[in-house]
């Protein structure tokens, strides 16, 4: 049997159990001992509230209104729409391209006035 190096037993201070308990009780409980044992409730993720400004209705006849092709919502009746389709077919372009170019021309001319 190989002999092991003797273990040095260090002299302990005579700390009593009461002292340990008392000193331990001084721990900052607010730092989260209780919080750690209980899993914190999942914080409800609040959806970021984005306040949307009500979209301003822009009349196509309003010359001074700010124009944005992306935001503009134009409604055509069936007759107008059929005419637009016909015109687009005649020119060999897409309906949307025709509408875009028409609006562009219209606003350009309006500005000139």
């Amino acid at each position, binding site marked *: 049997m190989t002999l092991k190096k003797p273990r040095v037993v260090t002299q302990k201070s005579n*700390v009593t159990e009461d002292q340990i308990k008392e000193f*331990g009780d001084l721990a900052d409980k607010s730092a989260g001992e209780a919080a750690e044992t209980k899993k914190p409730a999942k914080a409800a993720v609040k959806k970021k509230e984005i306040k949307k400004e009500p979209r301003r209705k822009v009349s196509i006849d309003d010359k001074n209104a700010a124009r944005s092709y992306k935001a503009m919502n134009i409604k055509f009746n069936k007759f107008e729409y059929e005419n637009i389709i016909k015109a687009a077919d005649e020119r060999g372009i897409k309906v949307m391209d025709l509408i875009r170019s028409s609006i562009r021309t219209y606003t350009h001319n309006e500005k000139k006035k």
Partner: protein
Amino acid sequence: MIILIGSQKGGCGKSTLAINIAALLAGWGKDVMLVDADRQATASAWVQEREELTDVPVINSVQKYDNIAKSLQDLDKRYEFVVVDAAGRDSRELRTAMLVAHKMIVPFRPSQADLNTLPKMQEMIVAAQDMNSDLEVFGLLTMAPTNPIVSESDEAEELMSEFYTEIPMIDVKVCDRKVYRDSMADGKGVTEMSNHKATKEIKLVAARIGLGE
């Protein structure tokens, strides 16, 4: 011998230091028990990672919370070295461990936030030493910038020696090196990797607190 790594500040490298000291001692053939008293369980995760390795000495680990004094005293009888990693706050684990530990390392970064926690830490140390006169305390600067132009570490050392006399500083700095993070992920200590500077740092820390082969 019970070696406690404790501080009231989180993120100052307590777990890193605890595992590296444990790895160094295990490398020297010592009988080491790593006590993880931090509910974040960083040290335990490291031990789990280490268990998969075959080329490094085994380190046993146990997670202990609340009043850990009795457990530490019991483990001290069974192991040559008990390294305790306490949570980074004024916890019952930290306080009860302070009353039975032989050596305590207080790591802190050279930052104002870390320095601000030291007055309360010093008060706690004085109170603990009143009851546990065996407790030897060492202050250790961790995560120090490697850039010699940055003088934060020197400033922190100066402040320590001036105001916190109950936490005598070790004349070694543990620098902020990538190898410490890498070794954590690999389940190794820096002394088991091939970074001479980090190895030297840990060996010097051990030497300064009176640990030797």
